[in-house]
């Protein structure tokens, strides 16, 4: 007897797409998301490439659809703890972590947030900005409820006292939910390689060396600087910005020998966004190869060069050294086309790190009983003929947790839909 329901782990764009496709066919979807809100990486981005559409503007309608759809049940701030059974009949134990707020009562008004006395770094802003101990991760969060970070909460009770809806419940307990589903989809996405593993680039030691994701938060109007691109060391507007490609990608020293697929594309996009913010800025991109494949991308790079005057330098930098007084950064490199060793000084350096499996991916793979490949991404049962099937029948995967394919948003959406079709096959067998 096939359970006519599906569990989708991971509420990023790929998981959201799979959820919507399946729910629209009347299939019951349990969408489990570890963080307090669905949305994933796409919610963190400012604009997408190559069209420069506002990322959250495209994503939010889908997020809202998920929350309103009668056949989708959102289990946010939850984790999958145990899986048993087989295709057609899985039993899944999901741990609903206590957010110390009653989801049914909270209206998302935010008064509690104003009153909370505790400030901690905001994970959604890549820790560049602050949030309160009771918080909404970002303005368009779905579900639109707050969460209490008990680790940093003082338990002063102020939030509880000002909440008109009486939604705060500081004594809330974790809840274990048992679900019966016919199929499972994993869509947990990626983490960024930590560039401090490359000491020569100074990330972590120098304030003005940041990652591309941190840049996205700085560019984004809902970010820690209100969308004003400024330097983290002194709040000044950067005039010379450098992007460095292949930080950890294509690098055997860290085992990430693959190309992460999207960095050449997104760095050109970010470079253009930087120029749109500060038209007088000088922007340079240090690359080894320019991999702008597919429709629209080479054209975008050409535009970046001709229209926006972005300088593309074929060089992988040797080292980045900070000028202590100004906190500016000197990049030492060889312009491999000219054959000359140079040093250029920048106010801001953006590193494009490799996209790697999430740190909790291995653990999740164990829970599900699926295999990972040598990089730690989930292994497809066959890369060519069944690329969204995992090594366990009935469990499918989509998005970057499968590893770098084309890697961009349309690709993740496509894979989401692909798994939806595969899931439907399994569920129809019963």
């Amino acid at each position, binding site marked *: 007897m096939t359970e006519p329901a599906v569990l989708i782990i991971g509420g990023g764009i790929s998981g959201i797409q799979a959820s919507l496709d399946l729910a629209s066919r009347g299939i019951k979807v349990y969408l489990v998301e570890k963080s307090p809100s669905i949305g994933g990486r796409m919610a963190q981005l400012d604009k997408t490439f190559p069209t420069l559409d506002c990322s959250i503007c495209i994503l939010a309608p889908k997020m809202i659809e998920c929350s309103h759809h009668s056949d989708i049940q959102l289990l946010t701030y939850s984790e999958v703890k145990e899986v048993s059974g087989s295709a057609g009949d899985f039993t899944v134990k999901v741990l609903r972590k206590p957010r110390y707020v009653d989801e049914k009562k909270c209206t998302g008004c935010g008064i509690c947030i104003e009153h909370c006395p505790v400030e901690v770094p905001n994970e959604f802003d890549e820790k560049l900005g602050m949030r309160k101990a009771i918080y909404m991760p970002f303005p368009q969060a779905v579900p639109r409820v707050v969460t209490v970070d008990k680790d940093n909460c003082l338990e002063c009770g102020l939030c509880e006292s000002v909440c008109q809806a009486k939604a705060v419940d500081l004594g809330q307990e974790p809840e274990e939910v048992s679900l019966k589903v016919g199929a499972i989809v994993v869509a947990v996405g990626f983490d960024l390689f930590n560039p401090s*593993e490359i*000491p020569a680039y100074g990330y972590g*030691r120098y304030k003005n060396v940041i990652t591309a994701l941190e840049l996205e938060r700085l560019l984004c109007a809902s970010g820690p600087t209100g969308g004003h691109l400024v330097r983290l060391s002194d709040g000044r507007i950067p005039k010379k910005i450098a992007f460095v490609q292949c930080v950890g990608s294509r690098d055997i*020293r*860290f085992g990430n020998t693959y190309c992460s697929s999207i960095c050449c594309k997104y760095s050109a996009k970010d470079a253009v966004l930087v120029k749109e913010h500060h038209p007088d800025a000088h922007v340079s991109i240090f690359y080894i190869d320019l991999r702008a494949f597919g429709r629209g991308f080479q054209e975008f790079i050409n535009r970046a060069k001709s229209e926006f005057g972005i300088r593309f330098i074929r060089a992988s930098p040797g*080292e980045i*050294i*900070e000028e*202590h007084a100004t906190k500016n950064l000197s990049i030492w490199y060889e312009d491999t086309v000219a054959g000359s060793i140079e040093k250029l000084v920048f106010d801001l350096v953006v590193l494009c790190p490799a996209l790697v499996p999430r740190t909790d991916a291995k653990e999740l793979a164990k829970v599900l009983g699926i295999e990972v490949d040598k990089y730690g991404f989930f292994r497809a049962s066959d890369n060519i003929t069944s690329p969204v099937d995992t090594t366990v029948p009935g469990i499918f995967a989509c998005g970057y947790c499968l590893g770098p394919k084309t890697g961009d948003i349309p690709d993740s959406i496509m894979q989401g839909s692909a798994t939806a079709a595969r899931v439907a096959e399994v569920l129809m067998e019963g």
Partner: protein
Amino acid sequence: MKYAFFLGCLIPARELSYETSVRKVLPALGIQLVDMKGTNCCAPFSIQSLNYASWLALAARNLCIAEEMGLDILTLCNDCYESLLMVNTILKQNTKLKNRVNEILSEVGKEFKGKTDVKHLVDVLYEDVGVDKLKNAVKEPLTKMRVATQPGCHLTKPKRLHLGFIKEFGAFDELVRATGAETVDYDRREMCCGGPLRDINDELSRSVARQKLMDIKNADVHSIVTVCPFCFLQFDLGQLEIKRHFKEEYNLPVLHFVELLRMAMGMKLEDWEINSHRIPISGILKGRL
């Protein structure tokens, strides 16, 4: 713990205070040193550049002597360390090469068996003695002393080639901090001292050392601390050479790490040892800042 003590060429010839300090400090920490007899040069950069077979055979001959003693090798010099460690690793992993080298070594009555390991002073202090034991041995902590550590290239980088990429070599700094001194970060800390080109291209060798001294000077330290006699030479005697050629003075005292350790353990340096430093160190000894 007992080790076959490989002194190399440079230390007994020019840096006696490194040797005397080691002979005082290590036994006090429970490390026994057994002098090796009849060793030849380890085959550093210049000799390695000549030909591959010579390098393997010359280095292996030393490894054989340690094998005959039934001990692992302890060396104080980064170049010796790099050469002996790399050859030891290569011959242990590659049977064909081992057999070819043994063909050569048989002519001098030696056979490489792969039974010894090569350790640097830093390895032995970090792994065998340990930071905690070192801290306990410190009687006069060098608090308020700011030092710039020079780990040196051949201690860390080729090791990564054979033993896997190690992100940052922190052992040396941890050992220095065990003495109570503060290790100060400076730009290009892992950069070479210029030593290998000494006597081959002195101009370049000097220029590289000069860049290091400039970076260290910016960090505002009391002393440079080295674990390799070439780094020591490049910075100590090197400052006089740089003064002559570039008309620049840096006034940066240079200490062997064992000398720092000795000071912290309450074993005073003799006058001749103090005077063997070209850049005066008396200022950092007096009253301990």
